[in-house]
């Protein structure tokens, strides 16, 4: 392979990308070296097993990915507003809509939510870390190296261009030769392993590590949503693992699963992809529901209405999520009976979702609503998500779907559910728990400005797309006819409004870091659940003494009784896990092996694989049992944190 085949050439935008990557990397290396921070970075972050730090790293990476996916989106919108200007060529456009979708779902939405789970769930259940802290670090590094591998594709080797769904035979070796599609396969495979590990980790954490007395039906609702999500992850991700592996074997080793030769069956890919893909949709929406429930209950100053109905509806949604996958390819050509079965099961999902909507409304009903930024995101979610949900039922009717399929109507629908659901929840959750993570609130005024820009931009961007879709505009086209122009221009204006909202949000992070008042207590919003019982910043062991829980608003009860998480008489030495460099090294090696497979350099893939096996052996022989925090140290830390 020549050097000019290795690097992507010929596009000014990509050259600019290369230059900025080099400059940013150089700047980071310079800053770390100049301020002598390498040791600090390694000790405090790269080898950490602390769930709070891992969560923060997840969220920061997800924000970076949101920026990357957002830039992709803006480029697409510019192209569609000025289709004759040759801003993007057709090939470049194909690559950008592929990476936009993949980055947003796999490397933005999931890590953002998993980051929030990491920080909050152990605090909500009164645990001192997750069940397997080193595995948790491994999950993060597998996601990060997977994301890096995928993102590097646009300067090295070329990006995948077969859509985020990568349907075969288009994505097969015959029609998409070269490393592009392999980047998709290996990037997702690597990060998918980490996601599966996270699912197992959180299930065990929630089942085994709850505070004494906390029954399952007394867990905070966000913890419940995490448990249900973890369950879906455990049962859905292996399907993706297999599907990706089969396509990789097709492309690299010449098997015939999804090919047009050897009696392969290309639509089997779609079948497997959506068997994972539909549960995946609920993996990114259920935690969002959990976040909104927490935020709405806190700022309505009321107990969540219909707690049990909320939990059962989530469980029902989880079950149904495995029974509807065919609605993504109704137009495959299956007979009426197959489509009808999945049409009915699809519409059933609207029932538990509707239950949740009414429960949120009932929680708000006759309450003193506080219009904080976090709550604004939650309140904006309800009507926006309903628009997305109702159009989803329209798409779920198989006969009607033949009209909507692959049009901008579909594009508008899934952006309405994914942005109004998942992205709003990410913002709401980040704003809400920000003081717990960083010791100060985000500025409310800037927060409101960014909220309104983003919300109005969102509706201006996507509402017209329903109509341009009904006018017949298909998705994934880089050129349009004149009749579709006006609505596309409006849509582009909205997209830039969202971009501006995001920019203000990021500026707010800097502004608040400089100017916000520091938190004095741990209870920033007069909270209801245990995470607010810890001091801010949270000590690395979380709870000096774990309270006994009797109700599902555990912290409300503690406040009434005057209890804290520091009961001097009951302090005992606390056992904590040691930091370890094994996860980052192991996943770094896995990243190298994956890179080798992307370019089909077998020597590199095999060497990486051997390295991985050796690291597993090292891990197996590691009997490090962690350390104990002594009573004196706990008392000192707590007194300082609580100003006693």
């Amino acid at each position, binding site marked *: 392979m020549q050097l000019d085949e290795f690097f992507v050439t010929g596009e000014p935008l990509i050259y600019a990308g290369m230059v900025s990557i080099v400059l940013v990397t150089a700047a980071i290396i310079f800053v770390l070296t100049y301020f002598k921070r390498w040791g600090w970075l390694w000790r405090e972050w790269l080898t950490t097993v602390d769930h709070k730090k891992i969560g923060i790293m997840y969220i920061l990476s997800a924000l970076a990915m949101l920026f990357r996916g957002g830039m992709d989106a803006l480029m697409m919108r510019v192209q569609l507003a000025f289709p004759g200007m040759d801003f993007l060529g057709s090939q470049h456009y194909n690559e950008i809509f592929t990476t936009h979708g993949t980055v947003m779902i796999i490397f933005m939405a999931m890590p953002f939510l998993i980051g929030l789970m990491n920080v909050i769930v152990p605090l909500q259940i009164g645990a001192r870390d997750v069940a397997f802290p080193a595995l948790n670090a491994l999950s993060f590094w597998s996601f990060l190296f997977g994301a890096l591998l995928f993102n590097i594709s646009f300067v090295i080797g070329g990006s995948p261009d077969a859509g985020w769904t990568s349907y075969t035979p288009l994505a097969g070796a015959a029609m998409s030769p070269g490393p592009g599609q392999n980047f998709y396969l290996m990037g997702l495979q690597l990060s998918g392993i980490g996601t599966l590990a996270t699912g197992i980790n959180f299930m*065990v954490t929630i089942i085994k590590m709850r505070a004494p007395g906390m029954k399952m039906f007394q867990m905070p609702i966000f913890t419940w949503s995490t448990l249900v999500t973890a369950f879906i992850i455990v049962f859905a991700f292996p399907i993706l693992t297999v599907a990706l592996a089969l396509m990789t074997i097709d492309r690299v080793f010449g098997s015939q*699963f999804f090919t047009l030769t*050897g009696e392969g069956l290309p639509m089997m890919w779609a079948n497997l992809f959506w068997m994972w893909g539909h549960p995946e949709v609920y993996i990114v929406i259920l935690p969002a529901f959990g976040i909104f429930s927490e935020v709405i209950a806190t700022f309505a100053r009321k107990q969540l209405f219909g707690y049990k109905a909320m939990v059962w509806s989530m469980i029902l949604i989880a079950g149904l999520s495995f029974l509807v996958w065919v609605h993504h390819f109704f137009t495959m050509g299956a007979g009426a009976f197959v489509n009808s079965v999945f049409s009915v099961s699809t519409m059933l999902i609207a029932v538990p979702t509707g239950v949740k909507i009414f429960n949120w409304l009932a929680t708000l009903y006759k309450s003193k609503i506080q219009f904080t930024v976090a709550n604004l995101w939650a309140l904006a979610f309800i009507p926006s998500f309903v628009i997305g949900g109702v159009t989803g039922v329209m798409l779920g009717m198989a006969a009607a779907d033949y009209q909507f399929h692959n049009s901008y109507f579909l594009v508008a629908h899934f952006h309405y559910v994914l942005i109004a659901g998942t992205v709003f929840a990410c913002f709401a959750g980040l704003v809400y728990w920000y003081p717990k993570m960083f010791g100060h609130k985000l500025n409310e005024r800037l927060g409101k400005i960014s909220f309104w820009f983003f919300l109005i931009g969102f509706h201006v961007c996507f509402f017209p797309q329903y109509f341009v879709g009904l006018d017949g505009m298909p998705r994934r086209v880089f050129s349009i006819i004149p009749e579709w122009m006006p609505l596309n221009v409006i849509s582009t204006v909205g997209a830039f409004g969202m971009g501006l909202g995001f920019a203000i949000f990021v500026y707010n992070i800097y502004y608040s870091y400089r100017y916000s008042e520091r938190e004095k207590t741990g209870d920033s919003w007069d909270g209801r659940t245990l995470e607010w019982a810890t001091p801010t910043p949270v000590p690395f062991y979380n709870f000096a003494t774990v309270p006994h829980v009797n109700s599902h608003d555990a912290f409300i009860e503690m406040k009434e009784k005057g209890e804290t998480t520091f009961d001097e008489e009951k302090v005992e030495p606390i056992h904590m896990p040691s930091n370890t460099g094994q996860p980052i090294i192991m996943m770094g090696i896995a990243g190298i092996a994956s890179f080798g497979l992307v370019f089909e350099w077998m020597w590199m893939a095999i060497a990486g694989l051997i390295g991985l096996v050796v690291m597993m052996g090292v891990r197996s*022989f590691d009997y490090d049992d962690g350390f104990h925090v002594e009573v004196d140290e706990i008392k000192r830390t707590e007194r300082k944190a609580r100003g006693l």
Partner: protein
Amino acid sequence: MSSHELKTGPLEYRTQQGQMNILGFWIFLGAEIVLFSTLFATYAVLFGRTADAPLPGELFEPGSVLIMTFLLLTSSFTCGIAIHEMRRGSKKGLITWMIITLALGLGFIGLEIEEFIHYAHEGATLQSSAYWSGFFILAGTHGLHVTVGIGWAILLLIQIAKRGLTPVTSRKFFIISLYWHFLDVVWIFLFTSIYLIGMVV
């Protein structure tokens, strides 16, 4: 992270961490069921799509497949005995029965490799058709699992020789026994739905 240790019951369950690791492994096995079922689904959907390659009924031989099945069934039994010995507190019994288990596992892998080579000579390879791709990947994934299990068990045998029976080492052996029995469960379905059905149809 409580480090309280129970005084009774099997060693592997005495610490909270031991219970959690075993529970985590059960959950992982749940994921493994779905992983294999996806491979089974692919195999089943691609059944009959042999193109120009030989039909499975022409190549499968009941004799060698039955021998492989008995090897694996027996290894699952001896693995159970190993854990039984471990719970009686016999390190020597555990090691002996575990080595027998691994020997049976190696026999299984040897026969499977021989079988694959034989099919390749007859013109049925990973590349020859959709059906044979499905066959080799499904059976191969199981074989790979057995191979990984053998390597893993050898690492654990070294650890137990050095450290003896502790809550940690017995937890590790209990977990690998779950893994080994699970591979037998998968093989039962492989034997039934690939070989028996392949020879009937």
